[in-house]
């Protein structure tokens, strides 16, 4: 059993910071593609790339 950081919730997943998808602790297919980037766990390399591209694009738009 896993509890959330504030101890209030029994949970078995985390969320990808880019797409928001649920990554289940006990699902091998979810674990297989996970990538650590900037001290966060993403569901896939594609989401890491998307995050980098978005930040670059928005930085360019802002000036």
């Amino acid at each position, binding site marked *: 059993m896993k509890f*959330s950081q504030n101890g*209030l*919730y029994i*949970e*078995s*997943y985390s*969320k*990808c*910071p*880019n*797409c*928001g*998808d*649920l990554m*289940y602790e*006990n*699902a091998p297919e*979810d674990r297989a593609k996970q990538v650590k980037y900037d001290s966060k766990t993403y569901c896939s390399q594609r*989401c890491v790339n*998307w995050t980098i591209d*978005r930040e670059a694009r928005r930085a360019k738009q802002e000036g």
Partner: protein
Amino acid sequence: MDFVTMNILDSAMVSICREMGITLMKTSYSTIFNEALDFTCGLADMNGDMIAVADFCPSQIGGMPLLVKSCLKEIPPSEIEEGDIILHNDPYRGGLHTPEHTFFKPIFVEGELMGFAVAIGHIAEVGGMAPGGFCGEATEIFHEGIRIPPVKIVSAGKDNVEVWKLLLANVRTPRVNFGDLKALIAAVDLGEKQMRGIYHKYGKDKIRETVSDLLLYSERRMRAELEAIPDGIYPFYDFVESDGIDADKHYRIQVEVHKRGGSVIVDYHGSSPQAVGPINATLGVATSAAYNAFLHMTDPSIPRNSGCFRPIEVMAPPGSIVNVDFPAPSVGGNTETHPRIVGTILGAMAKVLPNRVMAAEGATHCNFVFGGVDAETREYFACYDLEAVGWGGRAFADGNDAVDSINGNCRITPVEVYETRFPWLIESLAFNVDSCGAGEYRGGVGYTKQMLCLNKEIICSQMTDRHVLAPWGLNGGTEGGCGATLVMKQGRDDWETMREAYGKASTSRYSNVAIKEGDRVRLVTPGGGGYGNPDKRDPDSLARDLREGYISAKAAAELYGYKEV
């Protein structure tokens, strides 16, 4: 690909889903099911992909694949037995909001799991802080009623009595809830039985192959539709007004639709952080809203299944108004924020698909909920009441008048049923004159429902929108009219907002107001925005609007330059 068998099988499965829905409608206790039809019935394969669905509630249709897939990660197929029925409503695990209860039953054929019959229904009373499940002032999930992770409510054909006891001990109307939950179970029982018949007729291999082809066919048709749209990045934003806690703060829905070839990605990054109050959407809602928007802009004859969703992806940042994190509340996300997200995506695509989008609609279900002890029966009653709004004008037609918002497809409870079931007298129900945004094609009109309280006391709550931010027009069309909720206390002759009458922070989101016998409540629903330059409106159409009372002569003069002859 055997197109003949594929079409026959698709039609047969959709018919089964419709039959499931009719069973649910006819066996349920609550008006939200047997009158409003706030449910969806579908079929899934063993991976959780939706293979057929009936045309009921779109928010649940789009939410179904994520719901079933999430549950299967917690209760894997290896732990599912013949005769089991799994129940789930957890907003944080693929769910939509606490009232939305999902039931699914495995379909076993010759001992092999082939798929699931699925029914999702909005249970009218779920416990929590306010009767009727929509607490407009909730600040945490615990205010929003009982939360159910995936559990077996029926195990191998036998009711799991412990689960039933837990469920029914946490709601105000256990007798009615029991009937509604059993109706949902009846729906999945029927779906499972009918699908087993289909399997026996065609055989497992043929159905596996044909269903795979069917999903591929839907995917190809959706990709063909998307390929016809110019590639590009299409941004747009809109706002949800207030969260019931801070009445003056609006919450941004930001979308960037990335269209490339036969696929789209809807990126919500830039949307507001999650709100304190209950307007947050879950991941399931954000996903479903993106599907809903693209189903509205593409060929309606594409079979509705997970295949047509494959080309559509979402990027919904956690902890935001479009992907709520525990323990923030979310009950309004599925009803109010969902249509606002759809409208934002339609707004983004308006430049390249002007003939397939509409101006902003009313985008609220009104969500007037109430409960109390009936003076005659002494039984607790609770109701989730939804009302209709005006839809946005389109490039080829006026907006729909008084229709449930874009994610509901629900019916309005008839006055006679309403008065029979609940201690209100409906004094009037009439279109709101001038609530339609002006345009070459005007927006649809909303309406006003005026009710007199006949009970000693009715506890009322509401989660609605568009009291402040009007539905926008498109391509020169003007805004539609805002909604309102007003109360006239017995012995007075003036109408007040809920803020004025009860000191609530928001006029549109509040909870637990005690309406007394003789008090009146007036629900005013918003209209839709207009489409195109009002100067181009067909004079005959304008004359008809005047004749039918959709618009006043004064507004016609101001907005269209109408002169009475």
